[in-house]
């Protein structure tokens, strides 16, 4: 499914300084029963965000009105666990276009790239600087420039570059997805399949 093009994103950010945030926290399994991709943002971080009776947990960052923005900043090893793309959908549907962490789980990172969420991996030191900057001023803005592959804390001017492979970068910049690419080389695939027994 195609998604919005991504080039430069300047936004305040929501901090979640917890390590090993797993996909069962991002979207618990009981919310995976849809047959369409919609409404997942409502259940993002469901059990950290709401009590069993549906009332919001005041201390959780998504319920704190002083934090907002299109960037989610998480602790090390963000997105570990399941392959459920619903986790990336929930992040996107909630309104985030970028997740920043010092380390991402593999499948979650790939899923993000496939649904239009940019995973930005920074050094542990730079992650600390971001958390510190947001703590000092919750309205602190981060600027993410995909073309230049840089992330900048605007208040301090501190900047770091991040990695993304050239193919995925072009896809994100243009809002293309892998299926379009694969359908275009279907002839090659069919030849390959003929030579590959079951």
């Amino acid at each position, binding site marked *: *499914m195609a998604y919005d093009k991504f080039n430069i994103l300047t936004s305040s950010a929501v901090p979640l*300084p*917890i*390590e*090993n945030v*797993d996909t*069962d*926290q991002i979207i*618990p*399994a*009981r919310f*995976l*029963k*849809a*047959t*369409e*991709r919609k409404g997942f943002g409502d259940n993002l971080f469901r*059990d950290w965000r709401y009590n*069993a009776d549906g009332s919001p947990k005041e201390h959780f960052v998504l319920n704190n009105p002083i934090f907002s923005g299109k960037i989610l900043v998480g*602790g*090390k*090893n963000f997105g*570990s*666990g*399941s*392959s*459920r*793309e*619903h986790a*990336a959908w929930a992040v996107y549907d909630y309104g985030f276009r970028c997740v920043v962490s010092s*380390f*991402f*789980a*593999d*499948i979650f990172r*790939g*899923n993000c790239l*496939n*649904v239009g969420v940019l995973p930005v991996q920074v050094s542990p030191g730079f992650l600390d600087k971001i958390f510190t900057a947001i703590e000092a001023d919750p309205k602190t803005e981060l600027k993410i420039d995909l073309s230049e592959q840089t992330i900048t804390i605007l208040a301090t001017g501190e900047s770091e570059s991040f990695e993304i*492979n*050239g*193919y*995925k970068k072009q896809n994100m910049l243009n809002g293309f*997805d*892998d*299926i379009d*690419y*694969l*359908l275009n*080389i*279907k002839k*090659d*695939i069919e030849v*390959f*399949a003929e030579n*590959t*027994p*079951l």
Partner: protein
Amino acid sequence: MSKTLFDKVWDSHVVKHIENGPDVLFIDRHLVHEVTSPVAFLGLKNRGIKVLYPERTFATADHNTPTRNQHLPVQDPLSANQLKALEENAAAHNIPYWGLGHEKNGIVHVIGPENGITAPGATIVCGDSHTSTHGAFGAIAFGIGTSEVEMVLSTQCIMQPKPKKMRININGSLSKAVTPKDVALFIISKLTTSGATGYFVEYAGDVFKNMSMEGRMTVCNLSIEMGARGGMIAPDEKTFEYIKGREYTPKGADWDNAMIYWKTLYSDSDAVFDKELTFEASEIEPMITYGTNPGMGMGIKNDIPLAEAVEGGVATYKKSLEYMAFHEGDAMIGKPIDFVFLGSCTNGRIEDFRAFASIIKGRKKAENVTAWLVPGSHRVEEAIKEEGILDILHEAGFELREPGCSACLAMNDDKIPAGKYAVSTSNRNFEGRQGPGARTLLASPLVAAAAAVTGKVTDPRELMEEAYA
């Protein structure tokens, strides 16, 4: 050039390499279940295209299915809707569908090997992270997201950069009551849940060579829990013996040809790995987890580590223990428990039920324990009956449920209540994984059985006859 086992299988499946980008990887076999497929099928519908190779695609219902009264209509309307969607999608695209009640129905990673869908040297994917299970046969098998499910349905390919390679060697003999599950939990406790991220793991050494196929499946299944994309073990005579004669295994001349390829599937002696780790089998004890990720495990007789002794964030560690209502320095032995779950793609096979039965035989289920024993498939269920294990379970006060993923991820009604402790043979102890507020202790079927009959965390060695190896 010398190659690793992983290189041999990966390289032979690359349709196209994109400079500074991913490889286009051909997928031999694609397993589909009800939860991660509907949006992918919808994508095909929107593009007006059909599944390219239905004969390489297999569908089953397992994630949200009930484990009781499967002959009746599914009560939860959302689950019923997903099951209906899969049945209709399978029919529309001519994909074999083994739904509820079908003799081949079961957990996707249990029925793949049972039916010979899993083959050495194959590439196998499924929208489920525990697809790594199939690596036990020397296949490259890993979990994918729904966008990738759509790619495989429509083009039989995915696009991924080639991972780095890691080899984990364990030599020597395992001690009494140390099972494949303990081996895996031990490795994860050493590597942490992110220690193998970016890598594909090969398991090598005496321990894996001597392990049964089902044991190898348990180990490869848990590869994802150390962050690895997958894990694999070179196929050997044990592998060929296991798959021979199964429904989708090649026959006759095809078998002979396949064997020529399969016998080349090992890492060359001078092959280079990006990372190599070695452990001794004698270091491994029966394991149990005490926290909220599978890396938070230790020998069952140990005490919960102090926060200062743990690598990583102290705040995250303390949050985890707070969720579990455990304290630093606590012993795990003797902690009262409420539930026992035997099952899942990790430990829901016949050998797991045999191990469980070996402990509970002649004993009684503890009064305070609710036990959910869920076979991985109908075939496993049949074997439990045929081997007399069902009688042993009944005599000890246990019941057997019907196959499915069940309380491993609690998408159906099998949810551990908030605040309760479950000794579980499944694969994840994340917060709320087995139900909102549930507290999970991951362990082997032997540890689960010892807990089930004593009502508390118990070292299974204390309940074992000398004869049991």
